[in-house]
């Protein structure tokens, strides 16, 4: 006899949803298995790598360490909620433009963590970016293009006409 399910309602990517699931499930599992949103990934399911990060009430959390139940009535944002009306979020656009997404597995978490950073600090320094993203591991990029993509998106979000530096794309002469 399977466990009795619990049902909660919350705001998911700007829409009200109701979902029923086994009470022991983490937010990560509820998103991927009960809501069919597989954009949120897992790297360890122990809270050690940041790969599962989503935003709850605007703050990055490790969804593998949050119970689904704890999200009742809260505002949850996943990578699926970043593009609006078919238009990429500026961060998604710069990640694609600079090649900051290589295998793409860590990308959803980095995008959301970066979005949360820019909401508080629209003009972050490189060090502030590094601090904000220090809880996210990436094995492909070495982080460099991620910083550059965040800086480029931040500039554009501030209304500036920003283009990537030549060295960013082609190296130094």
């Amino acid at each position, binding site marked *: 006899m399977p466990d009795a399910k619990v049902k909660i309602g919350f705001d998911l990517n700007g829409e009200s949803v109701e979902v029923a699931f086994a009470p022991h499930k983490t937010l990560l599992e509820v998103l991927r298995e009960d809501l069919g949103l597989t954009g949120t*990934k897992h790297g360890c399911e122990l809270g050690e790598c940041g790969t599962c990060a989503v935003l709850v009430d605007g703050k990055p959390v490790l969804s593998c360490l949050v119970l689904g139940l704890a999200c009742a009535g809260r505002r949850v944002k996943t990578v699926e909620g970043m593009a609006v009306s078919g238009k990429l979020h500026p961060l998604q656009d710069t990640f*694609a433009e600079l*090649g900051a997404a290589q295998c793409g597995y860590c990308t959803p978490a980095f995008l959301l963590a970066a979005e949360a950073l820019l909401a508080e600090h629209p003009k972050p320094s490189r060090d502030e970016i590094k601090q904000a993203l220090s809880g996210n591991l990436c*094995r492909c*990029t070495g982080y460099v293009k991620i910083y550059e993509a965040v800086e480029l998106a931040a500039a554009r979000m501030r209304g500036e006409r920003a283009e990537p530096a030549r060295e960013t794309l*082609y190296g130094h002469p």
Partner: protein
Amino acid sequence: MGTRKKAAVKETAAVGRPGTPFRVVGNALRKVDATAKVTGVTKFADDLFLPRMLYAKLLRSPHPHARITAIDTSRALTLPGVKAVLTGHDLPIPFGILPVSQDEHALALDKVRFVGDPVAAVAAASEEVATAALDLIAVTYELERPITDAEDAVAHPEPRIHDYGDLGNLHKLVNLEFGDVEQGFAEADLVRDDLLFFEGSTHLPMEQHAAVGDWSPPPDGKLTLWSSTQTPHYVHRALAKVLELPPAKVRVIATPNGGGFGGKSDPFSHELVVAKLAMLTGRPVKITLTREEVFYCHRGRHPTLMWVKTGVKKDGAITAMHFKSLLDGGGYGSYGVASTYYTGALQTVTYHVPRYKFQGARAFTNKPPCGPKRGHGTPQPRFALEVHLDKIAEQLGMDPAELRLKQLVPPNSLTANWLRIGSMGLGACIRKVVQGSGWKEQFRNLPHGKGIGLACSSYITGAGLPVYWNAMPHSGVQLKCDRGGGVTVFCGSTEIGQGSDSILAVLVAEVLGLDPFDIAVVTGDTDLTPVDLGSYSSRVTLMTGNACIQAAERAREMIRRHAATQLAVPAERLAFAERRIFDVADPACGLSFAEAVQLAEAAEGTIGTVGSYTPQPSAGKYRGAGVGPSPAYSYSACVALVDVDPATGIVRVPRVWIAHDVGRSINAASVMGQIEGSVYMGLGEALMEEMAYRGNRNVVHKIPSLLEYKSPTTLEMCDVVTYVVEDPDPNGPFGAKECGQGPLLPVPPAVANAVYDAVGVRIDEVPITPEKVFKALRRKEKGEAARYGPDQFPDIPWPEPTRVAPPWEGGDGTAAEGGKGRQKAAALAARKR
């Protein structure tokens, strides 16, 4: 006819960055899969959910070395929700990536060889039930003495971990001689030997391995496996073999890999198990490894002990080199025989080595098996060589950069071990990092605690030989042209984040005058795509690229012919650009690409072309010559700036300058990403990554977690100043060579050399941890050797050497037969004097 000159066909106009002669190639391009990746739409293996899907879990051995005397699965089968349980007897046919070491069983048949070795498998309605069922499987073990490391294996030929192998627990022994090194040492002004160690590390991809098996019952009898694999073709062969299915009834689909780095290049237990469970239950079965299980899967960097002895003249020219390596292979073969040869193959491709001797041994030990990790067996010897040369430079009173510049291997030459060098841009790379870093002003000139170090390296652009011997192409591409002007390219290659799908689109776009986003790319599906051997050995851009260009050029010529007839323009005056085919002498005169395709299709029938690529045979013809040859070699030079705290031994690396000879950039943004990512991974190995085991406690992995196995976060990663050097190689597509592995190699030795420059101690091993630096500094203070590193290389019972005369001693690439060959070589050498 008029006096109009026949214009040379200018296929492409430089619309991209200044300096590139191509329209598409060489630019910084958005990848064709970039949007899917940034929107979370890309389906990795664990994102696949099929109706009525079951979940599988593996029971793993808690012992490092034991015989299985009994397994009782009866209680597990009674747990509600359990649909099937497998043990070794259900999959008795062995497999393994290399034909010479097919020593694995999907589930242990009679022995377990490391903690984590799979023993049984369960398929159940949920992961929770499958996990609970594992506890209900009773296994009785008879413990055997475990072998904890390579030295232990050398000392203890019994109990044997495997029934095969060159000697006792020594899996593979290699002994190769190219010329008389003793004579070379006698001619030297200085002879030096050093002992160094490179610890094992793992790939740590962010995506854990996952696979889904699905079975269509007879009369179809078709198995489909989706798997996060870099090598679907090799998995295809293993599935057919172990499951006893005709290969035509097996389909392997490589899902996009969330990182591979060589850790997803073997056929694995979990793939065979889900396939078998799908066949037994008639339902789709998924398995996803936990992060801890990924550590047990491993197939990473072999811990390698190395001894190197080199003779040099006063000006630094090498007269002879003798290199020995001892590899800790773990419990199974994997790619290990190739890894062993790789630890001895590329020493000769950077600096001229006229006489070379290599002895390599791989030991079986009771730990997770080692295999190919980015660089595959070459980062270890490159570390040893570059640190060794740093010491030699100091003894000679020479600048390390100058020492290297004076003896670079010339382009278009053969090495002592019969490797064919083509383009060779290392000199330009060294000059870039020397200039960019301010090397000359800073070397041996920085305040105590700050240091600068230099190292170089090279890597293959694709292994010259396939993993199983055959005479067929290494890569195949099929092209189809749609009447609407779109093109689809099919290739067996796998996208592991390196951008291989986009390479195909870029090259087709370049040749046919289209935009990469006009191209649909279908890859990594054994039903749909022609064979490509897989994403390993940095082969993909070169091999799929050449095959792709061939297929695209064949399509172009067919389309061009019919367009020429239609336009009444000589074919050689027609250019393909901006989705048009037009007369270069009168650009307004032309057709759209779509119109031209329709014309060709009406004339020829359905349009489809193929292209393929096979590397040329290697120059070496001796046993072992198959490892090392490549269509082209990339080159890298690195300067690392370090900060060492003498009180704690903590090493920080604020900046790395890296110059990489990539031949030609195909996608400039991808090249930058691969260089930066390689530097990152080299930094991780240099400072912190280690597969550590409790030798005296069951040989269990100490730290199988992302928290405790250290990899650099944003706070540890250095700044990277990148120089992309292009020395095009005629064997590469538009001259391209690799960039996905080469830039990793010079980083660990550059860091080690910088630490010496900073605080005067030699850390002759990686990772260069604070504890080691601290110990070395205290030794230095006490007047002892200012060094931390290995002290001895065990005596290995080497076999008789295979003697191969180098090219300049009249050799022909073959080994001498017994004594006659030596006499012949000596006679030839005597004639030359």
